[in-house]
């Protein structure tokens, strides 16, 4: 997995070298592995992505902890829209390398909250961060769990099935060998028919 992730970042650069005009489109539509940078002032890590790219510089933001990751790095960037706000929630968790398997999980969640005109505003009760009000709705969006289950069952399960379809540990049952023989025979017969014609 590590090799594929590294290759993806290099591939983007290679395409841009060939067709420089694709640069902006590529960088904003292809998700790159999240990079970690350090805010030396606060002494905390934060994550870089296209949304806080701002030309070629990045902006730092406050962190957001999640019980699902038992560690890792997360960053949230919010920006105003005409009727509401949008944000990106980034999470990066690297495996600890134990059991000789390495991995990395990158999450990029993009949310848009639309506040309908005339809707009652959340009551301010001395809290500075009004966006807390929206937290339960955002948190209950279970996309990540669904994707994680899909990855586990369908994607990994499917590739395992494909491997076992390429080669069989047990001797192939005789009917499969028979089918192979059938295929070879029908090929020969087809060729014979062509000659006759």
């Amino acid at each position: 997995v590590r090799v594929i992730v590294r290759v993806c970042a290099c591939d983007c650069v290679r395409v841009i070298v060939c067709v420089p005009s694709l640069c902006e489109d590529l960088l904003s539509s292809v998700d790159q592995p999240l990079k970690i940078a350090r805010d030396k002032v606060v002494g905390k890590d934060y994550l870089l992505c296209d949304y806080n790219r701002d030309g070629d510089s990045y902006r730092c933001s406050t962190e957001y902890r999640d019980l699902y990751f038992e560690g890792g790095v997360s960053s949230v960037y919010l920006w105003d829209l005409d009727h509401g706000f949008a944000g990106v929630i980034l999470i990066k968790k690297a495996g600890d390398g134990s059991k000789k398997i390495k991995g990395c999980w990158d999450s990029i969640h993009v949310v848009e909250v639309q506040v309908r005109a005339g809707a009652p505003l959340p009551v301010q009760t001395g809290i500075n961060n009004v966006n807390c009000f929206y937290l339960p709705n955002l948190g209950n969006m279970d996309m990540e769990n669904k994707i994680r289950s899909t990855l586990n069952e369908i994607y990994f399960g499917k590739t395992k099935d494909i491997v076992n379809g390429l080669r069989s540990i047990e001797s192939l049952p005789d009917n499969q060998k028979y089918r192979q023989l059938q295929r070879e025979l029908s090929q020969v017969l087809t060729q014979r028919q062509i000659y006759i014609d």
Partner: protein
Amino acid sequence: MIFQLSTAVQLQHKKEVRIAANFIIHAPPGEFNEVFNDVRLLLNSDNLLREGAAQAFAQYNMDQFTPAKLDGSEDQVLITEHGDLGHGRFFDPRKKQSFKFDHLRKEASEPQSHEGEVALRPWRDACDEALRAYVKDHYPTGVCTVYGKTIDGQQTIIACIEGHQFQPKNFWNGRCRSEWKFTISQPTAQVVGVLKIQVHYYEDGNVQLVSHKDVQESLIISNEVQTAKEFVKIIENAENEYQTAITENYQTMSDTTFKALRRQLPVTRTKIDWNKILSYKIGKEMQNA
């Protein structure tokens, strides 16, 4: 009037061809045409691509152990570096033939008689026969090719196995390859093997499994038939072990590593109650106020 490209443009072309070749060489099994067509669009010059990346097309087929078939034969031979005779021609040691291979169309033509190394033929033939039976027994779509060659003065047997399934309509392709070598110069030989698997599944997503394993075992050299039998036994055991390990790894990955990256449930074993978090936070801030 002579028109000469400036050095800068020539350098840029060289860089682009190198990049195009690199993309092509790394095309997943069964997706050469798609990558080739995409790369054509990027480069926007068919001449540049054909001239500069011709080596990449050949390299791809040799790396992938692409099977080739001559008209009039149901038997297939693998395109590999060991059978490369130069000038686009390849050796089929089972049929004692050479043929021209079109790397883009993947077509074989112009067969000619080609002897190969006569001294090694009994060993080669014995190994080929034993290996064919093994491949038929374990690979639903497998092909094998065995060479007998003297390399650096050592008489060497090289066995190549390939099996693939391409199902682009179902958004997946897969291929396994293995290459096994031993020399017959000493009473005990070192069998060296490399096993490779690559699977690409891209239905509403993009997942690749790319795996390889190196193997080394000892083999006692007796007569041709007995040695071939032991050789294939080593191959069978190693490839079974490898396939078992991959299947077990999937389970381990699911149980441990994947969970270490992202749990299905929090440590508390219940989903987060977001409304509770909100009220804790409000409570905390009210305390601090």
